[in-house]
């Protein structure tokens, strides 16, 4: 029953998203707008209702199953891949390697800059370093055994 209640909520939000997108003529996909609406509702409410939690857990844990039919659709585009496999593969391989290192480095740098400009104190939780967060989380985890 919980699962069905949660699913109804998700579908209701999707409907609201789709209707709003059409109504305002937005180019954004309806489900994405619905996701933002749900996120804002949760922030306002302050907690996740257990019904929503249970259906979300169930459908998100089997997320990758849903991509298969779309993935099989690639066989309709075999010819395109045959003609363009070289630029496509180079694009994917190169951009993935560079961005992995690049975005990790940016995150590290941003963190260092924060620490140089402002000393983290208890009054400024927003500027606490990521290292501290990591330690806190590890401590928290070990507290729970």
């Amino acid at each position, binding site marked *: 029953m919980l699962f069905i209640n949660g699913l109804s909520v998700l579908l209701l939000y999707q409907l609201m998203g789709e209707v709003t997108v059409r109504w305002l003529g937005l180019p954004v996909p309806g489900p994405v707008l619905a996701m933002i609406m749900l996120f804002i509702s949760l922030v306002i409410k302050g907690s996740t209702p257990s019904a929503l939690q249970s259906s979300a857990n169930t459908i998100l844990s089997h997320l990758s199953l849903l991509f298969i039919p*779309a993935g099989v659709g690639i066989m309709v585009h075999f010819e395109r891949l045959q003609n363009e496999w070289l630029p496509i593969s180079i694009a994917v391989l190169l951009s993935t390697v560079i961005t992995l290192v690049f975005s990790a*480095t940016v*995150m590290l740098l941003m963190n260092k800059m924060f620490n140089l400009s402002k000393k983290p104190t208890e009054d400024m939780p927003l500027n606490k370093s990521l290292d501290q967060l990591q330690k806190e989380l590890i401590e928290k985890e070990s507290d729970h055994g």
Partner: protein
Amino acid sequence: MMHWQAALSGIWQSPYLGLLLTLMSFQAGLVLFKRSGSKPWLHPVLVSAASLCAIILLTDLSYERYFESANFLNQILGPVIVALAIPLYENINLLKRYWFAFVVSNVVGGGVTIFMAVAIVYLGQGSDVSVNTMWTKSITTAIAIDLAPGIGGVAALAAALVMFTGVFGAMIAPSLLRLFRINHAAAQGTALGVCAHAVGTARALEMGSVQGAFAALSMCFMALLCALLLPFMLS
């Protein structure tokens, strides 16, 4: 007297055949994935989609008939995208504290990966459809296939590109991060989420809970950013 042939053709003609084959091949893929010690290149979606392609090519089951039957899975992607709001909300405390470093590395990192991929395909004389689809390369599949047709791309190609990117990213991330001595949990997680979305998030969860949380957050954030910006930029 038994009617073997009638029974067999009954199975073959069933409207549920495509759905059943998808579920079974996915389960077989999951078993294979676990037995192999979670090798990213044996990702269940890859194994399952490849074996379904083989079945469709080798038998008289047509792609149209398969898709009609398995379309149900495609249709429930909508509520699944809506459900992504929940993990995003659950991690809101991490986001509140580190929003600045997080947002900057997502926007800059995501921008670099997408523009670079699009530029390479464009310069390599790829077709317009491939160039347009390339924009969706680093967003999680659910949103990529929803977005691709609206910006002049193709959903199936988007699904394949996203999968390829995710599997490759998850495969090389550990050794690449070691090579560049990035041993910061939050940075590792963010990088995996930006580049390799859902597959990367699964990999990040294996590295630790902080990595997992940041990867999930990056995945949702990137998807949201692209879904909001790309349609305005390209249509």
